[in-house]
């Protein structure tokens, strides 16, 4: 497929502009580009076809099953977009006078109220652009807390080895040293090891529950009290909230600060560059450090509050990706309290249904019921047939299924992490189960076929190694 720059023809456009009736203003050279910006020039129907072609060559939730573990790819209801497209929300500017955007501020305030209720937190900021920025914001709150108490020796963050790679990256960005603790055989946090490393230099613990391998940390209350008793705080990574939303609250488990991925748990679109939304919620003890502005209700309406001298500052302009927050708020209001509980229950049910139907063929990494996702290991097939997790993933593409997360978590060899989500029907799950079985048969009988997959997609096996070693990230004009 040609790039849009290659399709561009000089002078072609989609607009017929009337002649200018004001004199031309020449901008001082000091403020202009050195060379002209070479934007693509195309007719509207060619642009439309270009993007339609791109859409045809991708796989999204609207195309088919997308069981990407750890990244909750659920269907995004159209009503969310409808609400976000309302004129009063879409066509406003963050610098408009507050009295002209009361509805938008009320929506933000309502979102804060609902998401705090769902997570058991006291205050929430919707400023962070997505999960990674949310994590950083959360850790900066923890840092501000210790620093205000002049507790400067707390320079370590404890993270289990099953955690998302973003956790250690975030802790490092926030200026902390990372202490990794090994998980137990059953994949859960090792309380004894935790006790060993927690000390008066522990700033906090980062944890996701259910864990990355789809198991509920049953000792969570003990885990959080071990850290609290030593003066540390506890951070909740919201990546896996989908399994428990409406049923169990991180705030009740002892977490002090959390981030949510609205684009995962609360059905706003993601992938393809977002925008996402990674709000940070916290208990009262951390509230004064939240980024500014916050939205406050007063006698004469809603207001942005900027003057908070303890705030860690601004993480992103204005109030984050507002239209994404609106979509999530719409989702929560549409489902209501009972509906939200059902999503979590169905997410867990669907994952267990798939796991149960695959466990006799594929090796499930951890025994027992799972939460919203489960991990299988392709290690045995690799030894017997030379078939890797990558080969299985590529073969799924031939059947119109997006591959699960591969080679993660690191603690499982040849891992495939499957998260069906609650938005899939039993028919879809059954079909996917059959395809997984079919691919297993192929791996046994004609492994070479799997090595060549996918054959019916727009591109076959890409040279990922070369792409990583010598990435070409920009178009060079001829």
């Amino acid at each position: 497929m040609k790039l849009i720059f290659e399709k561009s023809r000089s002078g072609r456009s989609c607009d017929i502009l009337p002649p200018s009736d004001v004199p031309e203003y020449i901008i001082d050279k000091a403020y202009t580009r050195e060379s002209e910006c070479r934007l693509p020039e195309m007719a509207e129907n060619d642009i439309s076809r270009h993007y339609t072609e791109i859409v045809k060559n991708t796989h999204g939730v609207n195309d088919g099953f997308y069981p990407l573990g750890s990244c909750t790819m659920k269907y995004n209801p159209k009503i969310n977009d409808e609400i976000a497209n309302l004129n009063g929300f879409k066509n406003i500017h963050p610098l408009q006078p507050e009295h002209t955007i009361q509805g938008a501020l009320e929506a933000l305030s309502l979102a804060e109220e609902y998401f705090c209720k769902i997570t058991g937190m006291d205050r929430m900021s919707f400023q962070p652009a997505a999960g990674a920025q949310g994590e950083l914001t959360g850790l900066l709150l923890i840092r501000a807390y210790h620093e205000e108490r002049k507790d400067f020796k707390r320079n370590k963050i404890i993270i289990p080895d099953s955690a998302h790679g973003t956790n250690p990256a975030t802790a490092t960005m926030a200026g902390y040293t990372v202490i990794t603790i090994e998980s137990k055989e059953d994949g859960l946090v090792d309380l004894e090891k935790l006790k060993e490393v927690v000390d008066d230099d522990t700033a906090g613990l980062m944890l996701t529950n259910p864990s990355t391998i789809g198991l509920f940390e049953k000792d969570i209350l003990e885990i959080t009290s071990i850290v609290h008793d030593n003066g540390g705080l506890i951070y909740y990574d919201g990546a896996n909230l989908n399994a428990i939303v409406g049923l169990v609250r991180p705030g009740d488990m002892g977490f002090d600060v959390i981030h949510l991925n609205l684009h995962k748990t609360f059905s706003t679109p993601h992938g393809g560059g977002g925008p996402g939304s990674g709000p940070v919620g916290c208990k009262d003890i951390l509230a004064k450090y939240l980024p500014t502005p916050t939205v406050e209700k007063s006698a004469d309406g809603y207001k942005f509050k900027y003057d908070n001298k303890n705030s860690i500052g601004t993480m992103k302009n204005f109030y984050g990706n507002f239209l994404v927050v609106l979509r999530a708020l719409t989702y929560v209001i549409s489902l209501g309290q009972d509906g939200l509980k059902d999503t979590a229950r169905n997410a867990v049910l669907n994952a267990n249904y798939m796991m149960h139907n695959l466990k006799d063929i594929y090796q499930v990494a951890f025994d027992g019921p799972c939460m919203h996702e489960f991990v299988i290991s392709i290690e045995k097939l690799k030894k017997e047939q030379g078939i890797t997790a990558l080969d299985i993933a590529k073969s799924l593409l031939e059947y119109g299924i997006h591959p699960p997360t591969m080679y993660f978590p690191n603690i499982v060899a040849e891992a495939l992490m499957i998260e069906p989500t609650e938005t899939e029907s039993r028919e879809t799950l059954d079909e996917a189960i059959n395809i997984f079985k079919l691919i297993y048969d192929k791996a046994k009988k004609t492994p070479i076929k799997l090595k060549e997959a996918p054959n019916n997609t727009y591109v076959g096996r890409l040279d990922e190694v070369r792409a990583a070693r010598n990435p070409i990230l920009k178009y060079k004009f001829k």
Partner: protein
Amino acid sequence: MNKTYYTRTHEWVEFISESKARVGLTDFAQESMGDLVFINLPEVDDEVIVDESFADVESVKAVEDVLSPLTGIVSAINDDLLDTPELINQEPYEAWLVEIDNITEKGELLDEDEYKKVLSEEE
């Protein structure tokens, strides 16, 4: 030829003298990581500590920490690896990562037979 030792976390150590050694990744380590695309090395004069991460390697699959088998000071790094990490895939026992001097502590070091036993347990 100096004697080579191995760790349970798949690093190799070759002593140049009593207090100086080179450290690299074993064939098993590079094989299970797959094609390496990026490596982070410490800087000369950095301190490394037994069982603590001193470098990380990235393949298309994952990023892994490299744990130090020794406590000491980095006296040299293998610059070539920064641009061509694939040397580790091609010649794992030639492609040393760092040279560590002033060694004050050694972690658990296995000889070839002991390491082979660890590998057979991994299988």
